[in-house]
């Protein structure tokens, strides 16, 4: 039987205030994106664009190859998500289901690596990608990030929850590890896999430093570094940057609105936020 909760007025008030705090910066971004550069310099600042204009959005298209950057971001995000899931699920399966010798030590190493900021691997990563002659390619954006210790750890937690009986029954029926992984473990732990996919796409969408470091051509960038190019050295046309921010966030917002049930369920089940 479902429990009935009485929601008090202050709960609504808290939700409203917290919601406002979250929405205001985004609303300000949208408003600034609809201003001219002169309107953004007014003192005191004008919150409502008067009159609203798409000058900022037009300038975005003039200054950076926005369509190419968006396409690159989609390609790289999807490739990264697919390959991350393949690599991480195999590694997590080896640790959680097969329990390979030394899996305890491997897990400790994974936990240790989780504590290390990823940026410190930039120089060795660049050296490897350079040796493979893959700099200034979209492949370079994907390859280093698909060996993701966070993904392994996340899927390890989900795979541990898969009933052993199912796996042992399949082994007795002669199923290979690949088959068990693909047909039993991944479907049972699909919320974890979905969470990893969503988080990987989000990480890639926001990635900044690595694409700038490894790629040279603007048409090989993703949206993060593309937007960074709009910032001036000493002065920035904020209407242009904010318009670009809205244009970049829009696809993700649309995807979220369409898939919000799966998204929230996936995140809730994974215990992550």
């Amino acid at each position: 039987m479902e429990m009935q909760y009485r929601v008090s007025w202050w709960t609504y008030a808290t939700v409203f205030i917290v919601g406002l705090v979250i929405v205001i910066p985004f609303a300000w971004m949208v408003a600034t994106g609809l201003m001219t550069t002169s309107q953004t310099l007014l003192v005191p600042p004008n919150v409502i664009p008067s009159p609203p204009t798409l000058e900022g959005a037009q300038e975005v298209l003039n200054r950076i190859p926005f369509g190419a950057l968006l396409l690159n971001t989609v390609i790289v995000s999807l490739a990264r998500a697919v390959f991350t899931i393949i690599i991480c699920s195999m590694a997590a399966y080896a640790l959680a289901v097969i329990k390979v010798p030394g899996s305890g030590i491997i897990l400790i190493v994974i936990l240790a690596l989780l504590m290390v900021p990823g940026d410190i691997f930039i120089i060795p990563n660049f050296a490897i990608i350079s040796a493979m002659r893959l700099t200034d390619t979209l492949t370079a954006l994907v390859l280093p990030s698909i060996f993701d210790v966070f993904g392994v750890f996340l899927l390890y937690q989900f795979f541990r929850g898969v009933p052993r009986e199912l796996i042992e029954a399949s082994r007795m029926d002669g199923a290979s590890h690949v088959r068990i992984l693909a047909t039993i473990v991944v479907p049972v732990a699909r919320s974890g896999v979905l969470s990893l996919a969503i988080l990987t796409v989000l990480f890639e969408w926001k990635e900044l430093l690595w694409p700038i470091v490894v790629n040279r051509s603007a048409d090989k960038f993703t949206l993060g570094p593309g937007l960074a190019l709009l910032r001036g050295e000493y002065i920035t046309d904020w209407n242009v940057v904010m318009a670009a921010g809205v244009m970049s966030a829009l696809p993700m917002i649309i995807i979220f609105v369409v898939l919000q049930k799966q998204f929230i369920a996936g995140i809730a089940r994974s215990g992550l936020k």
Partner: protein
Amino acid sequence: MLTHRTSLVAGAAFALTAAVGTQVALAEDVSISVMIWDPAQKDGVQLAIDAFEAANPSIDVSLELAPRDQYYPKLDAALSAGEGPDVMWQSSRASFYVAGSALESLDDFIARDSVSLDEYNPTITELYNFDGEQYGIPKDFDAWTMVYNANVFSELGVTPPTADWTWDDMVRIAGDIKAAQNDDAIIPLYYYYNWNNGVASLVHSMGGTVIKDNMGTMSTDAGIKALDMIRNLQDDGLITKVSDSADLNPVNALISGTVAIAEIPSWNLSLLSKADVPDGTFHVLHLPAVDGAWATDTNGLSYVMNANSQHKEESWELIKFLTSDEGAVLHAQGGAGLPANKAPETLAAFVEANSALVGLEEALAAQQPYPRTTTAFPKVILGQQQINSSVMTDFYDGRISAAEAARMIDEINTESLR
């Protein structure tokens, strides 16, 4: 296990390559790359590159723009892997790259082509000479100017400054701006209050030094007086409280008329000249005289060559062109970056590109530059964070005296120089 892992990496790389494609290098023409960080100068650099490509059809030059914050991390990663752009901008950090053998000495090229370094601002040329070898050809140099918004003076009925102004004139005029308002909506003055630029320049104007014989020398009459002069501006309400100044952008403030007079470095002048304001709005002066002098710190970027470049001849040809009279003029036509090339036509091109700024040519001609402290003594760069975040903050907040601040700055710099 190793074989499996290797196979895994190779397989993933192959699959990804197939999935998203790779770049195929051009086989015939020589392609070289130039990396810069300032979007405001991109147009000028591109103009010069276009002219170079027209004169050298077999050399294809790609101009890469990296955001300033990521410029050096990108360079570090690429150079350490034996990659990186063929030609790049360098600043006061050049010494670190020379020490790491990442940059090519240009001495042989300079001697072979009889390039005269006398054609460049000598202060900047010297910055890129290490152990007698020249690693960079100067591109630009920094100048500091004071710019006032004539509309603000007109609206408030205050007489604007003249070209022969002094520090006392500046204080008096800023006071007039403050007195002419009821609501303090207009900030009278923006002056660089940090140690490396504002304070050190005043010390030099008064004939002092901030570092001598590898020791900090702020604890002198000139050093202490310079600190007090800027704090008095704050305490008299002529500049914004330093603790509230971090977000104040002097260029934006001048354009919007919320600041009457602002100290503006040469690399920002084009932003004012391109602003959507009536002609004659901005007037440019040299800094106000203190004891008859108006010393300003200078630095300058240079074009340097990657020691790992596969096309050193072509890279040298490009550097030579970009810094030549013709290349410098084209760059200056972009409006940003004051050329280090001393040919009169380069300054004329810069002034012409910024013709909306009244008095620019005279203000630039009157510069009294000295090498910026962090440029002349790169070791003190590491201590700047400490000086700005602790010493200067405490000083401007009134928690320590000028003498104490000077002593602490000396300690930090002397320690850095060891």
